[in-house]
C-alpha cells in the first residue's frame, strides 16, 4: 500500500469502528439503562423491552457487532490487497 491507500484504509476502518461503537453504546447504556423505563412500557415476546435489552438483547447485539466488524474488515483487506491466507484462519 502507498501512503494514499494507507490513509484511505485507515479512514474507512475508523469510520466502521465509530458506527459500531455508537450502536454498542446505544443498546447497552441507552436501551438497557438510560431509557429502560420508557422501553419497559413496550412488551416484547413476554419481556418488558428495556429489561430484555439489559439481560438479552444487548449481549446478542454485541455478537452481531463483532460479526459485522470481522466481515467488513475482511472485505476491506481484500480490496486493499492485504488479506491473509484463508488456511491461516480455519486450518
Amino acid at each position, binding site marked *: *500500500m502507498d501512503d494514499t491507500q*494507507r490513509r484511505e*484504509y*485507515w479512514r474507512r*476502518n475508523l469510520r466502521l*469502528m465509530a458506527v*459500531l*461503537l455508537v450502536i*454498542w453504546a446505544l443498546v*447497552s*447504556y441507552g436501551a*438497557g*439503562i*438510560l431509557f*429502560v*423505563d420508557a422501553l*419497559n412500557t413496550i412488551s416484547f*415476546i*413476554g*419481556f*418488558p423491552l*428495556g*429489561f*430484555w435489552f*439489559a*439481560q*438479552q438483547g*444487548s*449481549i*446478542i447485539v*454485541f*455478537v452481531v*457487532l*463483532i*460479526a459485522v*466488524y*470481522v466481515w467488513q*474488515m*475482511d472485505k476491506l*483487506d481484500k480490496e*486493499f490487497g*492485504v*488479506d*491473509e*491466507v484463508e488456511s*491461516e*484462519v*480455519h*486450518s
Partner: protein
Amino acid sequence: MSDIQLWTLIFVVITFALYIVIAYRSRVSDTAGFYVAGGGIPASANGAAIAADWMSAASFISLAGIVAFAGNGYAGSVYLMGWTGGYVLLALLLAPYLRKFGKYTIPDFVGDRYNETARLVAVVAAIVVSFVYVAGQMAGVGVVFTRFLSVDKTTGVIIGMAIVFFYAVLGGMKGITWTQVAQYTVLIIAYLIPAVAVSAKVTGIALPQIGFGTILSELNGLQQDLGIAQYTEAFTQTSRANMVLITAALMFGTAGLPHVIVRFYTAKSVRAARFSALWALFFIAILYTTAPSVAAFSKYNIIDELGGTQGIPLSQAPDWFNTWAGVGLITQAGEAAAPISELAPDSVIRFTDVTINNDIIVLASPEIGGLPAPIVGLVAAGALAAALSTASGLLLVISSSVANDVYYKKINPQASEKQQLLVGRIAMAAAIVVAGYLGINPPGFVAQVVALAFGLACASFFPALVLGIFWKNCTAIGAMTGMIVGLGVTMAYMLWTIDIYGNSDGIFGIPETGFGTVGMIINFVVTIAVSKVTPKPSAEMQELVEEIRYPGRSRLVAAHAEGKDLH
C-alpha cells in the same frame, strides 16, 4: 456414598482424565509454544479457550445467583452487559493491533511501545491482578470438592493443583489452550442441560432465553406480594448513574485484563485475532444469555416452594432447603444471619424470612428443579472445569511475566531458549503452590478485591493500550503518568470506601465498583495532557505504530520482532 456423590465422582474422574490426555499430547519444547502456543491456534479453538479462560468459577457458580438475589433482578444486568460488552472493545480496539505487534505479554507491548519503567509498572500490575483472581479460582475448586464429594477443602485444592500442575507445566500455553477447549465443552453442556430441562418443565418452551419471558409477569406479582420491588423494575437498588458507571468499569476492565488480552497473541494472524474475538464472545454469550433465565426460574421456583406469600412451616421445608441450611448457606434473614436450626420446627418461613447464598443457585438448580442425580454430578464437573480453566490462564500470565519480562528482559538477556523455558516452568510451579495456599487460606478480602480488579485494570491498562495504538504522539512519560495517577486515584478511593478500611459513602455516592470508570477518564486526560508537553516518540516508533494498523508483513514490525530497539 449417595447417588449424587457417585455420579459426581464419575464425571470428575472422566473429565480430569480427558484433560491429562490432551495435555500429554500437546507438550511443548520452545518458549513460543510455552507463552503463546507458537501463535498457531485456529480461531474457533482459540475462541473456545478464551471463553473458558474468561468464565471463571464466579461466572459459572455465582452469576445467576447474583442476578436473582443480590438485587431485585434488573440490578444484576450490570454484570451481564459489563462482562460481555468489553469484548466489542477488545475486538475493535485492541485484538488485531496487538496481534500484529507480536511478542508475548502485555508488559512486552507497554515496554516496547513506551519504556522499561513502564514495563515494570505493567509487570507488577499484571502479577497482582492475576494472583488475586487465581486465589478465588482455587477456593472455588475447594468449594465444589467439599460440597459434592465430602472431601475436605485442603485435599480438594491439592487435587486441583496437581491437575493444573500437570498440564500447565508440561504444555504451557499450548497445553492450556487445548485443555480449555475441552473445559469449555464440559462447562457449557453442564450449564445448558439443567437450564433447558427447567425451562421445558416450567413453561413448555425448551429454549430458556425465550422461556423465562413467560414467567416474568407472574414473578413480578410474587415479589410485589412479598413486599419487594418487582423483578424487572429498574433502579430500585442502584441509581441510573451508578448503573452506567459500574457497567462501564466492567466493560473497560474486561478490555484491560492481561489474561484475556494475551490470548490474541496466540492467534495465527491479524484476521484470526478478529475471528477469535468473535468466536469468544459467541461462546460466552451462550452462557451469559442463559444465566438470567436460570436466575428467574430459580427465584420463581424457590418462592413457590417456600409457599409464596403464605409461607410454609419449617418442618415441611423441601429437602434442598434442609441440605443447604445444614451447611449454613441458607440462614435467617437480617444482619445476624442466624442459623435456620434456631427456629422452632412449626415456625412459618417465607422467601423474605431467609437469606439464600448466591452460590447455591446453579449448584442446586438441578435439585430444586427435581432433575436426576447424573445431572447434579455433571454440574459439579462443569464448575470444576470453569475454575481450573481460568486458574491455568492466570497462572500462565504470572509465569510468562516472571520468565519473559523479568528474567529474560531484566536479569539474563543472554538466556538460551532452554533456560527461559526452565525458568518459565519453575515460575509456573511456584505460582501454582502460592495459588493453592491462597485457595486453602483465602485472605478475607479476596472476594471484594476480585470485583475491584476490573476497576483497577480499566483505570491503568486500557488507556495506555488504546492510546499506544491509536495515537502516535502518545509519549512514554505521558502513559506512565496516566497509569500511575489513574491507578493511584482508583486504589485510594477503593481503600477509602470499602467496608474493611474506611466504609465511607464516597463522593456523589459513587460505589467503589464503579469508580474505575472515573479513574480511567482521569488516566486518559493526564496521558494526553502530559504527552502534549513532552518530546514526541522517535520517528521509527511512530512508523511502527503506523505499521500495526495494516495486516500482513511489514518492515519495522519484523525488525522489532527480531529484537531491534526502536526508541
